[in-house]
């Protein structure tokens, strides 16, 4: 982000002073302006006053649950939020994502990984180019013709497979929960029918991935959902 004329501002909401110090060190090094808050309430005030570009939110805050902070924030703001959670809290990650978080990282996380996730959040908040095609790996998607090709050869997708792919492209780099995808594609009544989603993911991967055992684009976030990544160097 150091190339931006105006530096991006990150708000860190975490009650651990050491985590805040470390994040500040790392983020300032990467060219961000860093603001901090120790509590959920202070974080909300800070977000209202200075409108940061991205928020890093710890789920375990002393005064209120991180998810509660997120819910309140989402009533008036669409600032991208990356949540931090600790090991073994898949449920809370899902709650956070369903409440409107854009991504999550599990502590302990690597610095490079965090920066990559922040860059991905930035890519998304920039107005999307009104491109009529989208490419990843050997795949080309032509939105106008609703056609997909792999290495120049047409790939036949069913209507539902195409809708799933389109959803992933729209939300690229974002962790989508099972519930979010199911609701989007099959409606609110299908929120619990994860086997629909798994079945269609299997079909989509079979048509688009090179190696089914180690997918490159359609990644599984275990216990949470899926994430579509299109730029390999930036994602882990």
């Amino acid at each position, binding site marked *: 982000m150091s190339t931006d004329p105006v530096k991006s501002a990150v708000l860190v909401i975490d009650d651990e002073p050491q985590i805040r110090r470390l994040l500040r060190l790392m983020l300032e090094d990467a060219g961000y302006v860093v603001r901090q808050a120790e509590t959920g309430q202070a974080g909300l005030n800070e977000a209202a006053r200075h409108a940061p570009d991205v928020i890093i939110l710890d789920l375990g805050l002393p005064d209120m649950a991180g998810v509660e902070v997120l819910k309140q924030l989402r009533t008036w703001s669409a600032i991208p939020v990356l949540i931090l959670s600790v090991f073994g809290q898949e449920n809370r990650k899902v709650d956070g994502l369903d409440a409107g978080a854009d991504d999550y990282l599990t502590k302990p996380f690597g610095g490079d990984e965090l920066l990559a996730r922040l860059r991905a959040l930035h890519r998304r908040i920039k107005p999307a180019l009104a491109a009529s095609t989208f490419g990843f790996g050997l795949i080309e998607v032509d939105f106008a013709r609703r056609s997909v090709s792999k290495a120049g050869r047409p790939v036949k997708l069913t*209507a*539902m497979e195409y809708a799933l792919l389109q959803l992933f492209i729209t939300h690229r780099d974002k962790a989508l929960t099972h519930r979010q995808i199911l609701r989007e594609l099959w409606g609110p009544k299908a929120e619990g029918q*994860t086997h629909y989603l*798994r079945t269609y993911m*299997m079909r989509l991967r079979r048509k688009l991935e090179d190696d089914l*055992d180690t997918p490159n684009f359609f990644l599984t976030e275990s216990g949470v959902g899926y994430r579509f990544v299109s730029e390999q160097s930036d994602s882990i």
Partner: protein
Amino acid sequence: MSWPAQETSRKPFDDGWAREYAEVVGVIAAVTVMGGFFMPRYGLNLSYGAFGHIYLLAVIALSLRVGRGPALAAAVVSAVAWDYVFVPPQMSFSVLNLDDTLELATYFVVALIGGQLTARVREREKLFAEAELHRTLLDSVSHELKTPLAVLRTAAEKIDTSDPQKRTRLTDEIRTATSRLDHLVANLLNQTRLESRGLRSQPDWCDARDIISAARRTVADALAGRPLKVEIPTDMPLFMADAPLLEQSVANLLLNAALHTPAASAVSVTVGMDQRGARVFIAVADRGPGIPPELRENLFQKFRRGQTARAGGLGLGLSIVRGFTLAQGGEVVASDNPQGGATFTIWLPHTSHGSVPGDEH
């Protein structure tokens, strides 16, 4: 944390107690039959007084083996049997004279005291053994925690003054130490979750490929440089499992294979279903030395490690695999790999999912 706590207090009527009461009744009955029926038949007639002492011996012997309650029962049962079978008139409850009453009372008190004393000694021994286990655990946990901490501290002190080349090596050491700590803490937390019964499996439809690839990612560093073969049938159906628990289990099995077999020896993961379609399995097979004979009995118990296992680790891996698999209604089985080495197989119950809405091309 609750893990070193053994069962210190047993419920009054669980299996162990039932067995002890049965043992008491059995032994007293045997002594009674022996003395009351067999011995007279072969012309051995002891006075009923002498036989009281034989009962006394039996009660003391029993109290060495059973708990306080059963020891007391032994005293009562043997007193009744003695009075009924031996004290004249035989085969009826006799009215006792002063001598006999005194003998019965003495006998009863001795049995009582003997039983309580031996029970107390045994309880103390058990406590001692627990303290010993506690200490060993504390030793190994603190060793496992302190080693990476020592590395971190030393590396942090050295890193400022080192030349760039050494700095890279130091950061590598820091990375290794943190991942070791991370793994250790995760294992301890998992074991605690298992024992606090705070673990509830949340099954959902799983794709075997997702599970295996996530597990491989977790232990990628440890598996580096090893041929890993993954076999998943193309028509493998979705199955119900708690994805994070199953991934952790498979990762632990892979990590075990990586840690306890020679470097660069092959590891394979096979997924499939039994013939009736009632169970699915994930098997991790290695080509290492196989399961050490001394471990076969209690391979899946916590803090169990092979005598030849290399340093590092607490022996929680397989205990967690077992706990997580049981929580999902499955079982894990260890066997010999026919081609040499060990195979660990996780079995989970299987039912097919409902139909998936079709869609048009």
